[in-house]
């Protein structure tokens, strides 16, 4: 049950891409996502430029951004990318909780997983689906990033080369940032009875978990270390470009590995 065959792993991950881009329900999700992002591109990202270019607004922005630790972003000549970074960094993790809520639970309830486990190990299914979701998120982020770059180049074509390299680095950071969220949903999928329940559990985990740890840390400050249980703990620091390499990449990768390991242990023992 525990082997990993690369070819089967890739096939399962590829199948997830097909699920989003070639099924009716998947295409509807993509359409809704596209409309939301068209609005984001038209207004916040478009207006980011006018905020930066207007002296009065720039002063106000400096004060606001400085107060919440985002002043470094104002130095970027690619204002659209700065706005994209802020929106994408917080919206994609939330969005991925929704689109990754049914990694295995639907197939488990329907019995489809029984057909699959006669042809792929449980590890391959779990990890393949996780990788598939990462690919989907990466594709969606890449598309929105390209659109943002297009808006930016439309304003000032000279920013293209630098924007491309900054965009690529941003994409890598964003992909790593969403990984623990996808892994959390993979874990919840191993014991939840439906995708909706997995989503509810995720929301409860973040809402109640933060309250409980807040209270515990208030009593015993050392317990604030428990914040690292939550995916996205580093996002605030990342938003202002103030986090270290370990914080931006190490923490989410470590969280993803731990969550997937726990999911794997549960999934191996669960009845199908």
């Amino acid at each position: 049950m525990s082997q990993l065959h690369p070819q089967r792993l890739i096939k399962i991950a590829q199948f997830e891409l097909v699920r989003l881009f070639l099924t009716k329900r998947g295409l509807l999700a993509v359409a809704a996502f596209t409309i939301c992002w068209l609005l984001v591109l038209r207004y916040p990202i478009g207006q980011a430029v006018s905020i930066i270019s207007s002296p009065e607004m720039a002063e106000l922005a400096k004060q606001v951004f400085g107060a919440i630790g985002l002043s470094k972003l104002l130095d970027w000549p690619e204002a659209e990318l700065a706005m994209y970074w802020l929106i994408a960094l917080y919206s994609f993790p939330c969005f991925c909780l929704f689109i990754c809520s049914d990694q295995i639970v639907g197939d488990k309830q329907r019995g489809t997983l029984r057909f699959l486990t006669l042809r792929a190990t449980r590890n391959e299914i779990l990890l393949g689906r996780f990788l598939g979701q990462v690919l989907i998120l990466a594709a969606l982020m890449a598309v929105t990033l390209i659109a943002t770059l297009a808006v930016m180049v439309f304003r000032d074509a000279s920013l293209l080369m630098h924007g491309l390299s900054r965009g690529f680095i941003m994409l890598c950071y964003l992909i790593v940032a969403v990984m623990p969220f996808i892994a959390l949903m993979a874990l919840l999928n191993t014991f939840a009875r439906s995708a909706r329940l997995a989503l509810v559990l995720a929301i409860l985990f973040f809402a109640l978990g933060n309250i409980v740890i807040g209270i515990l840390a208030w009593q015993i400050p050392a317990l604030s270390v428990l914040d690292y249980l939550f995916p996205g703990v580093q996002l605030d620091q990342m938003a202002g470009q103030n986090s270290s390499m370990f914080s931006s990449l190490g923490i989410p990768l470590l969280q993803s590995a731990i969550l997937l390991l726990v999911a794997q242990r549960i999934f191996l023992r669960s009845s199908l």
Partner: protein
Amino acid sequence: MSTLIQAQSLTKRYGSKLALDDVSFEITKGAPVALVGPNGAGKTTLFSLLCGYILPTHGQLNILGQKPGSSALFGKLSALPQDAQLDPRFSITHQLAFYGQLQGLSAKQSQTEALRVLDLVGLTEVAQQRSDDLSHGMRKRVTIGQALIGKPEIVMLDEATAGLDPIHAREVRELVANLSDEATFILSSHDLTELERLCGQVLHLNKGTLTEHQANNTQQQTQHFMTILFAQNYDHIERTIQTLPAVSRVYMSQAKEYVIEYQKSDDLFDIDLLNFCHQQGWRYRHLVNGHTLENQIFTQEKV
């Protein structure tokens, strides 16, 4: 004959409920094997253990020298699990081809294979449809098709003909009979006549315990019993048949059906019996050498 499946002291508990109790058996390559028993007897539990869907509480299970769920069994062991459905978001061919690819076929081979198995179950015309667009019976046949992808050595079908109309149920039986030279089928069904036709070995589960029968009656049985089903009810059948010299006992097993126990030495008893029926003007539906599987199992479950 090579051993395909070996189970030793297999026990499965769900909390305090004992689903399988110290079950041991061996299945060798050859004729289809039947798994029978009343509802809740543990058939699906045993199927699930064989497929690796659940883990046993105690005991050993060995399939082609591997543990259930091992990747070495992919493509060699296939199954139709009870109530399992394909994903309604994809076309049937797309999913069957995907399963083929997981079994190691190329993209092109898997397409051909998907169409081949759909042809086997008579459903090539629905290849591009989604499972939600199909009737219950068609969905069942598609899932039987998925169990035939590649060249499996063991095919387990849990209630394969349940919910199928008589014509398609018969087609599935014919399919199993035709393919039983290539693969060893393990069939679970409540239709004992169907299993009697197809299977050699019968694993009978009742309240988690297992006994074995031979659907094709043993030498001893064929020389002791006949089961006859009459076309209608006649008066004094038991008493009249009892007058035949070789007959030691006659009893009604169910409506219009009688079991006749006779002396082992009478080699031509079946001929004598049919002649006797003809003389009496009794029309019969069928004559079975020995006990029917249904009677064997019913007698045991009543005990």
